């Protein structure tokens, strides 16, 4: 967070640089079942983000020594295409991608009935084709749909959503400029029915009250996103039937 700058992120009317209110999400569009070869797949456009996900599995985990005797392992791999960002990203996972892949894997595992598929892996590939801040939460949201599309049994969908602080104001769903020049970001993943928190990170500087407000905002927005997920799934499966 927080390259200092003179850019004003909130104008006199309390609007953000893309015209949103503090608690307003960017436009979100999801589509389920977009790939031929994957066992499950989904695509999301969330603000300027374009992310495609594929799920393979449950399949025999390979190499063998990663197998676990009593459950499936969930391996999410978060990856950014070289051309998805302003400055070309060298192919291959950097340290950030390794960390995100780990926390996303753990978050997704929290909803999957892994004990049903011992010795297998459930591989979730999250490819960021165009990046505009909030890729990890958008990635979790769309990965959840791909898991559903692959028929992986889950106790709930999972919704990613972030809130943060810019120009001293707590706001929902930071875009790229807000992420670059803002003061804090709080990415979360939420189980919408039980409101459990499966992913929670934070960086920046916030008071306790600000953080509480941010979490409240993200948890409320999660319900909205959850409805969109359901719609996207319905659309696919209604069309099919």
């Amino acid at each position, binding site marked *: 967070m927080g390259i200092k700058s003179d850019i004003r992120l909130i104008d006199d009317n309390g609007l953000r640089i893309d015209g949103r209110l503090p608690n307003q999400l960017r436009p979100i569009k999801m589509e389920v079942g977009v790939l*031929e070869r994957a066992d499950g797949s989904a695509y999301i456009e969330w603000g300027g983000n374009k992310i495609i996900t594929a799920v393979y599995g449950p399949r025999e985990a390979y190499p063998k020594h990663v197998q676990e005797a009593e459950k499936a392992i969930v391996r999410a791999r978060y990856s950014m295409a070289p051309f*998805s960002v302003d400055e070309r990203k060298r192919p291959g996972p950097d340290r950030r991608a390794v960390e995100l892949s780990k926390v996303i894997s753990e978050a997704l595992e929290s909803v999957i009935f892994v004990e049903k598929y011992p010795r297998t892996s459930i591989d979730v590939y999250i490819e960021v*084709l165009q*990046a505009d801040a909030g890729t990890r939460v958008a990635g979790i949201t769309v990965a959840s749909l791909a898991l559903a599309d692959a028929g992986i049994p889950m106790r709930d969908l999972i919704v990613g959503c972030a809130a943060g602080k810019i120009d001293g104001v707590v706001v929902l769903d930071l875009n790229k400029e807000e992420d670059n020049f803002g003061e804090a970001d709080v990415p979360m993943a939420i189980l919408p029915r039980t409101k459990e928190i499966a992913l929670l990170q934070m960086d920046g500087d916030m008071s306790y009250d600000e953080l509480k407000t941010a979490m409240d905002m993200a948890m409320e927005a999660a319900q909205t996103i959850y409805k969109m997920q359901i719609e996207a799934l319905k659309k696919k499966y209604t069309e099919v039937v």
Partner: protein
Amino acid sequence: MSNSKFTAGVIPEMMKNYINRLASKGTRVDGRGFDEIRALKITKGYVKRAEGSALVELGKTKVLAGVKVEIGTPFPDTPNMGILTTNAELAPLASPTFEPGPPGEEAIELARVVDRGIREGHAIDLEKLVIEEGEKVWIIFVDIHVLDYDGNLFDAAGYGALAALIDAIVPASRYELGDDYKLPVQHYPVPVTFAKIGNWIVADPNLDEESIASARLTVTTNEEGHINAMQKGLSGTFTYEEVQKVINMSMDIGAKVREIILGDSDGKEN
């Protein structure tokens, strides 16, 4: 090395016999003629953050090509030329047989064949990409991202690369080097790939066909009917006559594909 990564598991003997039986009747699994390619859709400008991009759908094969343009130092032996570099990633989301990790021999061959077509076909006028001779030039990064693999990546990647280059701008204003301008594309080399199945040769093989093909040949030709690149693959062989036939077909098909690449435009205004 064997083509194991490109083989989606074992195609049963049955499938092989079926494809051969169809071929003997002059047709293919999906009803195409031998010299007919699958439906081709090209969406330029798909990725706004890239300087150029194109999503290619060739049948069910999906490839996204992106172009980034940055500033760098020229190679010592070509101080008056920009730099072109091509990379391909067989992202594991595209096929159960693709694995995460650094590019394997398939990805490297794919990138190099695409690169050779563009480079040897002089698609880009690299001499127009010099900012300061010997010091500063534009580097063109072409990245091929395979999203869904249903056969014939060479052609899908080649079309994507060319379309993304056509779509691309040189972001001069970002570096305070004047106005942005379109990347100087001067030729339009187009690859067409053929597979040999039994004694038949088919254009644009899909995954099932690739899986039982004995040999593969890619021919890249330009708008003047010249040949710029060829690449034979797999452990089977071609006769001299088969090669001549393939080259001729590649020119015909290439001409049609070139129209689609040039004509299509979506997203960004060009």
